[in-house]
């Protein structure tokens, strides 16, 4: 078995097992569940390095986790009822612990809704989701979120403490309560996906994993009757369209390749088709959520017809009328240049008041490049370079800057 496969199993089973243990033990003690699962993994590592990986590592892990939980129950009972002399008494009291696919589904669903509690705040939700739903270790989370181990540990600690006080989750949530939290869950999945898609950390595998896990959670939600489907399908469509370009996007050695320069043969047509299917399903019903609009934009990006830019511009307009976001505002301005005129886009860009963002300077540089004003392009690239923090982004800007300078010197020597 490949190392990668094995780490996938660990990641996936981590979230499965933590969810199931919480199902039996209660979500108020996520830490306990995590400890038991970690012990299970340590056990696996020791045992497997002697005897090799078993035929069904999943079943092995589940069995061991099951026993760990049983042991824990027994110890807990003993401790709780010290005055009772008979240990076997408490043995009989230990509930039957079962780990089946069905129970995993139930517990995972519950776990998703625990993690996505709106009271937690965005960053904590993402940290917890990566840890508990995606099985990432602290190092990986720190890398993914451009943070350090200590900060992530602190965040996780605080978040888990907050969960501890949610006794109401012990009694199972009603159908309505689940459905009512759906928006918050979708937001976390969306953020999770964006984190994977846009973050330019060097480790490609982590980014792909995050995107995959976000999509897995989305697919998972579609399997449950309780939820109204259109928004879930719209979000899935959006993720499929974006994911179809992941390979093309990350095929550069120095940072991301942006849309215009991507090699289209690297786009994943299967995912594009899936996205179309989900988008069609999302159209059932009356709701037009921001996921619908964003999915439609992502769809148009897969089309090579030039007339698409007017559609994309109108969709961005709609999105911004619905809700402001700086990134959407910048993207809209680019679409404006393509659909209306570069001059108009430059005028509009200057109204955005996003001077602190390097994306803003990159956008203006690009607009001036389209307008043939290489000296201005260079000026904006230089300020973008100062503002950018991520190494890969700096690299990308530096490359553009060199190109702009070369063009200028060619022009000058030609004069």
């Amino acid at each position: 078995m490949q190392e990668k496969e094995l780490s996938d199993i660990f990641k996936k089973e981590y979230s499965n097992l933590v969810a199931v243990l919480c199902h039996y033990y209660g979500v108020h003690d996520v830490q306990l569940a995590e400890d038991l699962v970690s012990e299970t993994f340590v056990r696996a590592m020791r045992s497997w390095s002697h005897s090799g990986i078993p035929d069904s590592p999943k079943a092995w892990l589940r069995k061991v986790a099951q026993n760990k939980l049983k042991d824990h129950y027994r110890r807990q009972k003993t401790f709780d009822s010290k005055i009772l002399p008979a240990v076997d008494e408490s043995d009989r009291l230990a509930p039957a612990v079962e780990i089946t696919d069905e129970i995993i589904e139930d517990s995972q669903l519950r776990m998703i809704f625990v993690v996505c509690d709106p009271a937690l705040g965005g960053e904590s939700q993402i940290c917890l989701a990566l840890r508990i739903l995606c099985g990432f270790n602290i190092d990986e989370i720190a890398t993914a979120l451009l943070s350090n181990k200590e900060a992530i540990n602190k965040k996780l600690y605080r978040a888990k403490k907050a969960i501890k006080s949610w006794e109401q989750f012990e009694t199972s949530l009603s159908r309505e309560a689940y459905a009512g939290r759906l928006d918050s869950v979708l937001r976390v999945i969306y953020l999770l996906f964006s984190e994977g898609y846009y973050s330019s950390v060097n480790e490609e595998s982590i980014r792909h994993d995050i995107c995959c896990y976000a999509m897995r959670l989305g697919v998972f939600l579609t399997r449950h009757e309780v939820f109204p489907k259109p928004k879930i399908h719209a979000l899935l469509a959006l993720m499929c369209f974006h994911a179809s370009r992941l390979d093309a996007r990350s095929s550069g050695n120095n940072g991301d390749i942006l849309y215009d320069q991507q090699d289209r043969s690297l786009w994943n047509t299967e995912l594009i088709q899936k996205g179309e299917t989900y988008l069609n399903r999302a159209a059932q019903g009356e709701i037009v959520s921001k996921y619908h609009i964003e999915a439609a934009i992502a769809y148009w990006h897969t089309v090579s017809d030039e007339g698409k830019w007017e559609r994309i511009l109108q969709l961005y307009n709609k999105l911004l009328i619905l809700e402001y976001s700086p990134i959407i505002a910048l993207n809209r301005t680019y679409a404006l240049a393509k659909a209306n005129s570069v001059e108009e886009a430059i005028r509009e860009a200057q109204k955005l008041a996003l001077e602190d963002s390097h994306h803003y300077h990159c956008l203006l540089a690009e607009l001036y490049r389209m307008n043939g004003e290489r000296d201005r392009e260079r000026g904006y690239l230089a300020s973008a370079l100062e503002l950018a923090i991520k190494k890969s982004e700096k690299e990308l800007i530096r490359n553009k800057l060199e190109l702009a300078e070369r063009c200028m010197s060619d022009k000058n020597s030609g004069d």
Partner: protein
Amino acid sequence: MMLFHSEPNPDFNPTPEQIQAEMKRWQDWMGSIGAQGKLKSPGEGLGYQGKTMHADGSITDGPYAEVKEIIGGFIIVSAEGVDEAIQLAIGCPALGNGGKVEVRDIMDYESMAAEG
């Protein structure tokens, strides 16, 4: 709040292309305000039907009282003051159709109560 005044022209029968172009102008303009993070509410467009109730209880046809101008719609923007808001009105399609944009401040009762 921006109020869009216009004079209804009963003889104007726009072609689908004209309607489309007019819609695009409005969407682009509102999208621009949205892109600046200053659109608080996209408001509503108003139709031409309406009646007016007068103080004496009489009812007249039409939304317009004495002037022939009517209010065609409104949006709410967030701005530091009326001056900033009026700058946002630049490019408003209502102006292109011989209409006017009226900017009014919205009273903030909560902060008034807090102040005094």
